[in-house]
């Protein structure tokens, strides 16, 4: 049902355009979180350069997870989700559409904004490049897994914290490969292996996560 997919993404983007502040919030959180680390760790450039990839990736993960609960919550509350689920065979399209919208509104802006933080942490240009490349490949994985978490925790009181607990362990490979790519480039090695792994992870997740999310949606609304 590619029609459902396109219609959903278009609608979500249009809704986001009408609530621009909500879209900026995850980016703002990301900025604040990343800026806290120098304050906690100390301004020594050598240290900052070393922790930069890890800090950026972890902050990106948390920013993504905090905004992902809203993926389904509003639609669940006003009955739109139910109507979407009535369309035969649409569950996977819904999951994919939600993940894509979330990535376009959170993951992609983070990847685009990353160079600024790279400079704040005194990273070299090649390192910044590999940071952005890794984020572009890895943030869709976070959105896909986040969608699964949001579907599993649909309507629950514990909300975002429970979602983070459930989903973060599954996101660890993406963080390792993404941050590892930067570390490789900084030591003068090629990050090609890391990008391949991230790419494989993305394909694997893109194929399986929507199915799992569709099943989770059915479990949550039955």
């Amino acid at each position, binding site marked *: 049902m590619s029609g459902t997919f396109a219609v959903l993404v278009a609608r979500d983007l249009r809704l986001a355009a009408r609530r621009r502040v909500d879209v900026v919030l995850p980016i703002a959180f990301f900025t604040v979180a990343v800026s806290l680390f120098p304050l906690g760790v100390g301004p020594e450039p050598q240290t900052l350069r070393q922790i930069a990839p890890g800090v950026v990736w972890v902050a990106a993960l948390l920013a993504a997870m905090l905004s992902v609960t809203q993926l389904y919550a509003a639609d669940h509350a006003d009955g739109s989700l139910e109507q979407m689920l009535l369309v035969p065979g649409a569950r996977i399209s819904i999951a994919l559409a939600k993940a894509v919208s979330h990535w376009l509104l959170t993951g992609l802006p983070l990847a685009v904004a990353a160079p600024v933080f790279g400079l704040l942490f005194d990273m070299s240009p090649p390192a910044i490049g590999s940071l952005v490349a890794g984020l572009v490949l890895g943030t869709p994985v976070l959105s896909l897994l986040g969608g*699964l978490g949001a579907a*599993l925790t649909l309507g629950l*009181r514990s909300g975002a914290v429970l979602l983070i*607990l*459930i989903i973060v*362990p599954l996101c660890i490979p993406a963080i390792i490969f993404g941050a590892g790519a930067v570390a490789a480039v900084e030591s003068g090695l090629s990050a090609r292996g890391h990008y391949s792994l991230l790419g494989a992870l993305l394909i694997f997740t893109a194929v399986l996560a929507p199915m*799992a999310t569709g099943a989770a949606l059915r*479990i949550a609304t039955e």
Partner: protein
Amino acid sequence: MSTTLRFFRFASPAAFYPLAGKLVPWFAAIAAILAATALYLGMLRAPTDATQGDAYRIIFIHVPAAWMSMLLYVVMAFWAAIGWAFNARLASIVARAIAPTGAMFTFLALWTGALWGKPTWGTWWVWDARLTSELILLFLYAGYIALVSAIDDTRRADRAGALLAIVGSVNVPIIYFSVIWWNTLHQGASVSVTAAPKMASVMLLAMLLMTLAFWAYAFAVIFVRTRAIALERDNHAAWATDAVARAPVRQGASS
């Protein structure tokens, strides 16, 4: 079809309850005997290691606990999946009963890992591949337990938990691989900090016996928990009220 039906007779909580009740003391006894034997062999009969001295003996608890923690997660996911696919209530109950025990073994593995590391390498914790993976496994258990506890509707909770456990099982190899990758990158040589010493046959036997002891213990505890959950869920059913009525009243128990 009729022979399989006979086996599936125990698939209902009502039939399982008395059977499990009879088996629990046996499992407990087996666990105690095997554990005692294993500890005797490991602590007293196994030779002292040349490099690590006597500190390595924690391995006889650490390794079996780690094995159990990983095995129980897969078993939990398996029964949860069966419960979901076939609408088998007992299978779902068993999966829920396994989770706390699995988490306990994970915690035990981590704790004994720390106890091993301190005298051997001077630190309470090392971020080597095995210990880090155990830590992530603990998070996976915690996530499962948190999710099923957060959902009031038992059917939805069972199914959501099953999905999460399956997703976790599929991801465990990936996570493990990525942790090894991460570890070799940052440490250069892929030497596990808490590498086991060369195995004498006594050591192997002790670890094996301890693993079996943990298995028997797990069976006992999981059966007890399953019975309790089954009673809770079916608390209006005739078999449950009968079972509670027949249970011996403890001295001084508050009613």
